[in-house]
C-alpha cells in the first residue's frame, strides 16, 4: 500500500509500515432506528445496512430496517419478515447466480425463533432482495435453530 500526502504543496510519500493504527472513534448518531430492536441480524449490501427483526422489548419483531449511512437515515420497510422473529443470522450474497436471472444481490436470513411470543425455532431461509425491497422464502429450509451466526 502506498499513499501520497499533499501538504503545503509538498508531496510526502508514506508507506503502510509508517502508519500506526492506534485509535478509534465511537459516535452516537442523532439518527435512530424507528423502533428499539435487539437480538436481530443484519447485513450490508454495499450501499445500505439492513436490520432484520429482533426483540422490540415486548414482542418478536418482523420489521426490516434500512439504514443509509450517507443520508444518516433509518427507515422501516413496508415488507416485513414472513413472521416476527429474533435470533436470526443473516448474510449478504453478492453476485450469486440464480438460474436464468444471472447475477443478483440478495440477503439470506436463517432460522431464528419465530412467532409472537413463540420460542419455536424457524426452519426458514428468507431471501431479501435489496433492489426491490421484497422478500420470499428459499425453497429449502434448515434444521430449526435460533441464535446461530453466519458468515
Amino acid at each position, binding site marked *: 500500500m502506498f499513499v501520497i500526502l499533499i501538504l503545503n504543496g509538498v508531496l510526502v510519500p508514506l508507506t503502510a509500515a509508517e502508519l500506526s493504527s492506534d485509535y*478509534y472513534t465511537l459516535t452516537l*448518531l442523532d439518527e435512530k432506528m424507528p423502533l428499539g430492536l435487539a437480538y436481530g441480524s443484519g447485513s*450490508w449490501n454495499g450501499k445500505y445496512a439492513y436490520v432484520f427483526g429482533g426483540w422490540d*422489548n415486548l414482542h418478536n419483531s418482523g420489521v426490516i430496517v434500512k439504514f443509509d449511512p450517507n443520508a444518516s437515515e433509518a427507515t422501516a420497510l413496508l415488507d416485513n419478515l414472513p413472521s416476527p422473529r429474533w435470533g436470526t443470522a443473516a448474510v449478504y450474497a453478492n453476485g450469486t447466480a*440464480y438460474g436464468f436471472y444471472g447475477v443478483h444481490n440478495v440477503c439470506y436470513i436463517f432460522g431464528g425463533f419465530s412467532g409472537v411470543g413463540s420460542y419455536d425455532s424457524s426452519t426458514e431461509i428468507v431471501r431479501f432482495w435489496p433492489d426491490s425491497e421484497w422478500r420470499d422464502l428459499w425453497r429449502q429450509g*434448515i434444521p430449526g435453530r435460533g441464535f446461530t451466526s453466519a458468515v
Partner: protein
Amino acid sequence: MKFDPNKAGDLSVEILPEKLPSARAHASAVWGGNVAYIFGGGFINETNGFEYLDDIVKFDPSTGEVTRMKAKLPSGRAYTSAIWNGTNAYVFGGQTRLTNGSVITLDEVVRYDPSTDEASILQEKLPSPREGTVAVWTGVAAYIFGGRDGSATDRQIIMMSHELTASAASFSGLEVGILVTVIVAGILIFIYGLKKARNRRRS
C-alpha cells in the same frame, strides 16, 4: 452448516461433518477473507445454568479444519456482535457473568488481530453497555444498531471509525507537533485533515 444457493433442489443446505469444539449459541462470527472466526457464545450447563465461553474459534472451509485459537476473549461472553474490517475483527458488547455470579451487560469493544492471535479491549467504549446488537462494516466504518442494556431495547445507532495516525517525525519538512490523520477503507486511504499532535498511542 453450509448453504450454497447455486445448488439445486434439496442440496443447497448441507450439514458439514466438522464440529465446533463445544456446542454453543449466542456467538458472533466474522468472515476474515479466507476463514471464519467465531467468538464466545454459551451453552446450558445443567449444574451451573448458562455458561459463557471465552474462546475464539477459527474455521477454514477449504480444509474443514476447526481450530481453537490461543487468544481468548477478555471474559466469557454471549450476545455479542462482530465485524471484520479487512485486518482485524471487532466484538461489541455482550453479556457475561461476574465471579460473584451476577450477570452484566458489557460496553467493551474487543479487537482480535489474527496476524498476532491477540485479543485486546479497546480504550474506547460503547456509549453504554449493550447486548444483542447488530453490527455491519461498510468499508469505511462500522455501524452498531440497537441492542439491549439489560432492561430495554435501544433505537440507537453507533458509528465506529478506525483512524490511523503517523508520527510527524517520520515526515521530512513538516513542523514537529502536527499529526496527520487518515482513514483507511480497504486499500484506499482518505486524508481528511490535520490535527495537533497528541499522545494518543495505545500501549
